[in-house]
């Protein structure tokens, strides 16, 4: 489990409308693995983070085996429902990886994503779940190391937390 090629099978969402279903599927796959391993669902913007992930995979940079990628057309498509449904269906953490602030290809998508992630954190906090389980990262398409660093940081955060209990 050291190289990236086998570890991060992207669960590609064909269109924005199916990305919630893709998130659920990714989370269910993770839960079905039945290991004590933690799991993270990463919602990646097609224009930057996904391209960075692609580049890092081509460079054979090892990624934590816990992460599964979900392709989004823009992080502005991420809604609190995506994040919470991923957590409710088996993921221990959800991260949103988008463009640098001010560099969204659709002008303001990542600003919206920042606020929605913040809102999802507050929702989680209000029902007693650690808000760190949901986080937003920004990077550009030309920064694969930054993507890898973000995933590793998220992985460390999630490992420090107890497994997410669900009713």
């Amino acid at each position, binding site marked *: 489990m050291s190289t990236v090629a086998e570890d991060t099978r992207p669960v590609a969402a064909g269109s924005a409308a199916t990305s919630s279903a893709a998130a659920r599927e990714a989370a269910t796959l993770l839960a079905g693995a039945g290991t004590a391993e933690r799991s993270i669902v990463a919602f990646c913007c097609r224009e930057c983070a996904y391209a960075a992930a692609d580049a890092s995979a081509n460079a054979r940079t090892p990624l934590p085996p816990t992460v599964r990628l979900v392709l989004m057309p823009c992080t502005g498509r991420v809604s609190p429902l995506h994040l919470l449904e991923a957590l*409710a269906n088996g993921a221990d953490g959800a991260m949103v990886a988008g463009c640098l602030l001010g560099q969204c290809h659709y002008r303001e998508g990542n600003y919206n994503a920042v*606020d929605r992630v913040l809102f999802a954190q507050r*929702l989680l906090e*209000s029902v007693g779940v650690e808000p760190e389980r949901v986080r937003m990262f920004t990077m550009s398409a030309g920064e694969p190391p930054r993507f890898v660093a973000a995933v590793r940081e998220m992985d460390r955060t999630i490992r420090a937390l107890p497994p997410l209990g669900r009713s």
Partner: protein
Amino acid sequence: MPLTNRGHEVADRLPGATFGSGSALGCEIVRHDELCIGCGRCAAACPTGASTRGDTFDVNQLLDAPAESRRGALGAAMRRLQRRAPSGPIEVPTRVATYRTIVYDSERCLGCGACARACPADAIEAAAPEVGAASSAKVTS
């Protein structure tokens, strides 16, 4: 006195309004917050500003949402993750528009029912007033 253009415009916004008889106003407005999707159309339709969009969000709205309602999926996810009851409403970031609890001020409400007609989620009920009750109230006051 015949109605002005503005008068007709207002009368059109109040369903069944007939000035003079007063029979159309005074509907009893019942809000079902667990069905509300926070779109704010009731606030836009309200002629007196009795319904406005608030700055906070009441998490119980999600936790109570029935499975088949528009926010059922999010409500179900929240119920699965829930470890404790929410302590109160949470603040909403600026760019999150639809997760805001609508503030309803019954003091300013005419009971015209414009909000119930505008609501896409059937979260507002407007019950027509009983004619007898309305007229007797008028006599006593």
